[in-house]
């Protein structure tokens, strides 16, 4: 049991080492020309100002949920693939391959049903804010603007 945790340790050490190596390398190779914009926190294009407790648009939660859903599916798929490809297990039982494949198909099928459900329900539509057209009538005709632009 302890030995198997050795792999984890090796993984940690190798990962940390690789990151350290690459970042140090980059430190020396890249050009260094910072400005205010570049030094600010990356926020997917939003301006990083104000309180941290701002209200996010609930639309994002939908995407977060879908992301988590498929993430978990993938996480299960990896160990499944390892077990599925195990020759010893396959040799031990005749129906192993079919059984394992079928199980995963059911699993993905249920997730697919969930996706289909969300799709039909319209949960995947990006809810566009309903912008009201202004009824302000400018004395300047719209064509006048075209001349300037």
């Amino acid at each position, binding site marked *: 049991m302890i030995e198997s945790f050795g792999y984890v340790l090796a993984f940690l050490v190798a990962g940390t080492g690789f990151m350290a190596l690459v970042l140090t390398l980059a430190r020396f190779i890249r050009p260094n020309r910072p400005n205010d914009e570049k030094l600010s926190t990356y926020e997917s294009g939003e301006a990083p100002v104000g309180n941290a407790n701002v209200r996010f648009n609930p639309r994002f939660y939908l995407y977060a949920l879908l992301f988590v859903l498929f993430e978990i599916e993938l996480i299960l798929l990896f160990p499944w693939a390892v077990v599925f490809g195990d020759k010893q297990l396959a040799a031990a039982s005749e129906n192993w391959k079919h059984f394992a494949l079928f199980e995963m198909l059911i699993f993905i099928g*249920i997730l697919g*049903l969930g996706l289909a*459900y969300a799709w*039909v329900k319209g949960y995947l539509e990006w809810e566009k804010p309903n912008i009201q057209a202004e009824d302000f009538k400018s004395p300047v005709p719209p064509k006048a603007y075209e001349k300037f632009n």
Partner: protein
Amino acid sequence: MTPVIALSLFGIINLFLGFTFKRQSLQVVTLLFIICSMALTAMDWNHEYLWFGDMMKTNNLSINFSLIIQLAGLLVVAFSNGFGKDEVYTQPAEYYAILLFSLVGALLMVSFQNLIMLFVGLEILSVAMYVLTGSDKRNLRSNEAALKYFLMGSFATGFLLFGIALVYGSTRSLYISGILYNLSHTAPESLPSFLYAGIILMGIGLLFKISAAPFHFWTPDVYEGAPTIFTMFMSTVVKTAGFAAIYHILDVTFGGFQKNWIITVYFITIITLILGNISAAYQQSAKRMLAFSSISHAGYMLLTVCANQPSTSSNILYYSLAYTLATAVSFAVLMVVAEYQTGRTEKPENFDALNGLAKNNPSLAFAFTVALLSLAGIPLTAGFWGKFFVFTDMFNKNLTYPIIIAVLMSAVGIYYYFKGIISVYFNSGEIEKIETSFLFKIALWSACIGTLVLGIYPTLLKSIF
């Protein structure tokens, strides 16, 4: 095994049926689904087998519990009336699907052989309940209830998980059979002391779900805030499943360590009985009163868990069934009356809102009365025998002092249950004839007749349980 698979499938099917079916036909379909899965459950009668990697076990006890739970689900669906006529804000397909999924969770909780499955079942059940509690999105109290339930519930789950971890740490197994084997092959002195902490923590996690005091503070608020139909579900299905699990953990698995947990559970039982009953007596809202009454009934059922007699499981079954029938009926009547009174009176769930119900709705009034009598434990209703069997267990164990408290508390119970009867029959009020659907009537009458039949001839089911 089959009912779990069937109910999961039915839930998914229900989601898609929602696109085409009307709400009334969805109700019928869901009823058929539950009846179908009850039939599947019953087909396993007298077959004892392990399944799902030996993590689940089906036997007659689990089948009995499953049937009671599904019966409760059936009653809830029958009383639901398609969740009203509000097309925009209610989604019957989703509600029914979630109800079916939570039934799956409850079924896992009654037949687990592995502590992980207990946890999974509890979570399936609880998460579904959090959603349903908050389903009345425009109602602030419903939102508050959902959040409260969710926060407290996750805390309790944390306790449960911690307990499971400690038990696993000391017995090196998550399987009930493995735990029992290791416990019987280890000298009691060499067992680590955190095993006892683990037992207590697991107990606490489950006692929260059945709302035993002092873990009951969420109950009145959540019961009151949630839409009544889901309160009905919560107080019947969750409680029965929770008791099945408690029985399995405390009495079956750790029955040999009774001296280590009995003091704690005793204390909790007594507090539950006293707090539940005394607080119920002060309520103005009938729904809140029923919430406290559900706490007090948890106390009575815990008594028999404390006694841990050979007949304990059958007594829990009988009590759960009696309690389920009576609670479902009382919530159902309260629900239709509150619906009628919304807009007419300020507080449609208060006792005052029931005033004069008997005048134009004799059948609703009668059913409500029978249900309250059964909850109060008056003879010739099922509730009397539930209490009777529990007290018998206590006497067999020579636990005389808790019985005295329990008996005194049932006298207190009369006071608050009869408040409902007083409103319905003695007080005058203006309630016109309330129209109810055919399914509602059938469910109401069958639950009522069931209560009376079980009250007159308890041997009918006692011989099966």
